[in-house]
């Protein structure tokens, strides 16, 4: 087994392989699009791409948040709880403050982002100060979030009818709804943070080699907490877009985001070990997962096969796109 691994290592050792591997997620996406279009030509239409964009937008924001944490070599599994709390906070604030973004209601947006940031900070502090593995700390915080949102709503759904807010879904520019542009804007901000700020570079430093980063004088604990705060803020953006998509805020708003976002990040080619990948990879990953979800319905795959096929496609996408050379052991 070990000899086999070594042989794989030598085979993939080459800069050409590296540059090809970088594009594998994109190629996977392209192949999927071509495949679904071949089976049902309706798939390849602007209207369908707009539908995929609607389902991808909230997921993209959540996955981008998770990307920062994964780049550091940690993991954040609190998104279902955080998204639920932020969605409920947003909806409650908006409805309390007159129910429209046009007046004081806009405060609901920074309010939700603040809630996300606070939850992220708590998450990060528990992980760093109490030295609890991020996996466990964030998973538990996710449960806390679900409980908290349930407490706030009492199990009820909060409806948002503000036409201005719902224009994120209903108003289209160049065939795509506004929420797609909002998500793209969020992505560009995340890209800027990742590539052009010290903290962004520090995420890579911590993920690439924590000991080295510490030895060169970096306050690793601080970087980690900031990473979780940033993730929380992006989860809140995802929550707002999720509410925009359905007009409903409830505890179940967060449901499904954990699988969706972690899968997207990994399928996009960001290594779970940390230090490699980035937010553009995550965009490709989110699109892959949503194209699969949409495509399976469009080609009419029987529903009892869909979950299984999704799992298999995800495994193949990860197999093709992840650089396992650096992994002596897959954690």
């Amino acid at each position, binding site marked *: 087994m070990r000899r086999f691994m070594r042989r794989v290592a030598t085979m993939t050792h080459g800069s050409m392989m590296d540059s090809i591997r970088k594009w594998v997620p994109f190629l996977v996406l392209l192949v999927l699009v071509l495949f679904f279009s071949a089976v*049902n030509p309706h798939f390849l239409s602007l209207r369908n791409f707009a*539908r995929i964009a609607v389902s991808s937008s909230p997921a993209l924001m959540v996955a981008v948040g998770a990307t920062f944490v994964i780049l550091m070599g940690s993991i954040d599994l609190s998104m279902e709880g955080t998204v639920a709390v932020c969605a409920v906070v947003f909806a409650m604030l908006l409805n309390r403050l007159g129910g429209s973004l046009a007046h004081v209601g806009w405060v609901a947006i920074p309010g939700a982002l603040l809630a996300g940031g606070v939850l992220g900070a708590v998450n990060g502090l528990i992980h760093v100060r109490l030295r609890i593995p991020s996996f466990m700390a964030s998973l538990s915080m996710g449960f806390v979030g679900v409980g908290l949102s349930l407490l706030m709503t009492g199990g009820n759904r909060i409806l948002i009818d503000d036409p201005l807010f719902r224009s994120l879904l209903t108003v289209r520019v160049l065939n795509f709804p506004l929420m797609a542009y909002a998500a793209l804007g969020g992505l560009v901000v995340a890209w800027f943070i990742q590539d052009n700020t010290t903290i962004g570079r520090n995420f890579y430093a911590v993920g690439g080699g924590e000991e080295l980063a510490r030895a060169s004088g970096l306050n690793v604990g601080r970087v980690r907490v900031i990473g979780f705060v940033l993730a929380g803020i992006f989860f809140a953006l995802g929550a707002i877009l999720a509410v925009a998509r359905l007009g409903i805020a409830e505890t179940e708003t967060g449901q499904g985001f954990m699988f969706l976002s972690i899968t997207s990040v990994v399928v996009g080619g960001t290594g779970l070990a940390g230090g490699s990948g980035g937010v553009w990879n995550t965009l490709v990953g989110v699109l892959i997962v949503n194209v699969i979800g949409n495509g399976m319905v469009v080609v009419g795959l029987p529903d009892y096969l869909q979950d299984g096929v999704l799992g298999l496609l995800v495994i193949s996408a990860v197999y093709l796109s992840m650089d396992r050379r650096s992994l002596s052991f897959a954690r």
Partner: protein
Amino acid sequence: MSFIRQYIEQQTINRRNLLLLSAYGLGGLAASAGLRPGPARAAGANPKIAWSYRDRTNPYWNSIVSGGEAFVESLGLPKSALLNLINGGSSEKSLADIKALLSRYGSGVALAADPNDMPNCRPVVEAVAGAGAYVSTIWNKTDDLHPWDFGDNYVSHMTWSDVGPSEQTARILIEAMGGKGGLVHLGGIASNNPAIERLAGLKNALKSYPNVELLAEQAADWDTQKANQVMSGFLTRYGDAIKGVHCASDTMAYGVIEALRAEGIENMPVVSYDGNPQAVDLVAQGKLLATVFTNPYWGGGITASLAYYAATGVFKPSKEPKEHREFYGPTVLVTTKDARDFKAKYIDSNPKYDWKDFWGLSKGQIQYRS
């Protein structure tokens, strides 16, 4: 040093006696439990009242539990007197929680439960009967399990027959489509009984409309977001061929309506099921054509009430006829015509129910398809 040896010997004998005695005691307990005359006695004046269910995030279960709380309050107790056993969709947890409750309070338990899936009902009922406590179940039960086989301890089982009402909503939908064109069905988790029955209702209705085609049926797992995604997939696949949507639950209908709204489609006929407050509002506005109310509030209250009053000896289940042991819960069709009246009566305020009128809203004894 002999006193030490003597002390040790004495202690050994004491321990042996203790072991023997406790073994005898346990054996005696078991024997007396086994020899106790069949149907257990009433648990006394103050049984603990508990509801075992999935969780409160879903409006349906939220109403069930609210009904349970209303019943508890009718006894002059605070809401907190109702013990919530939340199984989170796990049959194992459901059974483990119930067993823990029974080992704490023994026969002094009046339990209302949805066993989560059909096979789990038998172990739940057997555990309760074994402890001499009382249980009433809803929804999930295998056809070979009957309350009357357990004396008084398995008080009752209530379920809802969805085939008929679902057929009614389908007819309303098809009439709105003008009796022709294609429609799609979004179903619940494929193995759930209500999902199966609601689809069966649709198919029954389709038999009398040869010009209507069921383009596709797909499970969206009772989930709003999944329904949203599935509906947009349908729109890509069938486009304008879709003239109507039949949803197996309100929660999925919300996702469908939003998927349509995203496309600027406002007048597509949609029907759903469950009669949640938000859905009733949508029916009143004409965005949904019909939904079916199963009165979970009453169901949650009456199920706890049946177990409680059987435990306190107010009525003796084994003396009741079979249609009082296994019965269908109420179903009320809500259409655009009566949605406002319905809302005033059932949603804006919960009617004050007489929790001792156990079978007032029942729709007859459960019939099994052989």
